[in-house]
């Protein structure tokens, strides 16, 4: 499945958490400028998949390539510096740093993203720039987590449940921002529980079930096959 045309490709990836075998030969490809939705039930291995791409977990087998360059086996800092950004589950902002510091420590490489540009995207963060990240609301922390990932000027952005635990209004705003970033050309892998929002944004869909890919295809095809969605994702 790996191809040179892909922004990000996984092939035959096996990952373990300690002794437990979580990912079984996972393979899929994200094409440049596309938004790929990675779906699956709780515990299916979505977060493990992102953790493996980011280098938090070393795959035991298989390989991961970023624009053709092999990144599996590299350290997370090296993977970040090559152009992978992560908006992690639970946001994980640096709580004792101010908003501005959270962005400043993540600034990498040359590209359009600066603290100023993140503030233009999220004016609310500008208002709170001197505040400790730990004191922000959930929605503001999510904006900060997205802004922080952008500060690395990523070529591929991984987003793990950005709508989790947010008020519906904020979810809609986060969805708009994701759509806008993608429309500006950023390639995105989006993990979401919110299937409806995700199918509205995605070009391609990958479904994993108990650590293995059970569907990969364009979003239209996924939509047509509601039985399959229901089978792998539960009723929605």
């Amino acid at each position: 499945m790996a191809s040179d045309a892909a922004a990000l490709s996984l092939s035959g990836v096996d990952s373990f958490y300690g002794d437990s075998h979580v990912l079984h030969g996972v393979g899929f490809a994200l094409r440049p400028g596309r938004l790929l939705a990675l779906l699956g039930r709780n515990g299916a291995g979505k977060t493990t998949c992102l953790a493996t791409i980011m280098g938090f977990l070393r795959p035991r087998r298989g390989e991961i390539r970023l624009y053709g360059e092999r990144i599996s086996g590299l350290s997370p800092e090296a993977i970040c510096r090559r152009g992978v950004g992560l908006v992690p589950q639970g946001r994980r902002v640096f709580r004792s740093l101010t908003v501005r510091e959270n962005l400043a420590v993540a600034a990498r490489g040359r590209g359009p993203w600066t603290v100023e540009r993140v503030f233009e995207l999220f004016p609310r963060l500008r208002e709170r720039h001197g505040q400790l990240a730990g004191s922000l609301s959930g929605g503001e922390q999510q904006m900060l987590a997205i802004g922080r990932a952008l500060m690395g000027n990523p070529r591929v952005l991984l987003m793990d449940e950005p709508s989790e635990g947010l008020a519906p209004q904020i979810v809609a705003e986060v969805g708009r921002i994701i759509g806008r970033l993608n429309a500006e050309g950023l390639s995105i892998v989006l993990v979401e529980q919110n299937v409806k929002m995700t199918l509205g944004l995605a070009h391609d869909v990958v479904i994993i079930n108990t650590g293995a890919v059970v569907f990969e295809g364009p979003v239209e095809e996924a939509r047509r096959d509601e039985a399959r969605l229901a089978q792998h994702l539960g009723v929605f």
Partner: protein
Amino acid sequence: MQFWLIQTLNSLALGGLLFLLSSGFSLIFGLQRIPNLAHGALFMLGAYIGTSLLAREVDFWLAAPLAGVLVGLLGVALERLVLRRLAGNEQGQVLVTLGVAFIIADLCLLVWTGDPIPVPAPEGLRRPVFLFGFAFPTYRLVVLGIAVAAAIGLFLLMERTRLGAMIRAGVDDPEMARGVGIRVSGLFTTVFCLGVALAGTAGVLGGPILSAYPGLDADMLPLALVVVILGGVGSLLGAFVGSFVVSSIYNFGTALFPDLAYVILFLPMVLALVFKPEGLFGRVRA
């Protein structure tokens, strides 16, 4: 009155030394998640190196930072060659630092023998100053001043620079810090080096007050532990406040209730661990 004043000043001077020792200990603990049990031994090593430098007529104010640099370099070697290989094995790392503490103590005994070596205060600071009719030991005031200056310097480094923000990010969430491209292992080395260099420097500065003797390490390490657990792991402010609280408890406790000195010292630590394990100013549980 003179008793209280002198004891207070002694507490402040010891608190200053303790801050130089425990600030590095606390930063290393906060970032690497391990108590560096060799920290007391590195303080003692600094003191002994200081005595050798002073014996070779090196100026006191040069000897102190020089000893700090030498101890800091040893720290880099320890971090890169030993601790790094045990990454992820925290128990192993702690045990290694304890082993290194014993090795350093034994080597010090071999090189500098078992006799205490007194360290004279620098020329010009040996005579007391008289204020309001009371005599104050000048050198202790200077040590206090140096500790306050170091605290301000460290505060500016940690709170006002990008390096400091990256270190704090590493304390908050080391994995995520790596995920945004911060080379946390490089920070580990930097912080470890800085922390033990401060300890080495403090050893020399403490010389005129404590002198250099076998067992100095075992006297100082528990104090640093109490400071950090009371003040909060990884917190500079905690180390600062904790240092003066602990030195006061220790000084007044020893003077007023000599039989209970250790009870008075360790009881607050036990209470802190039970009721407020993150310390007064910390975020990470000890």
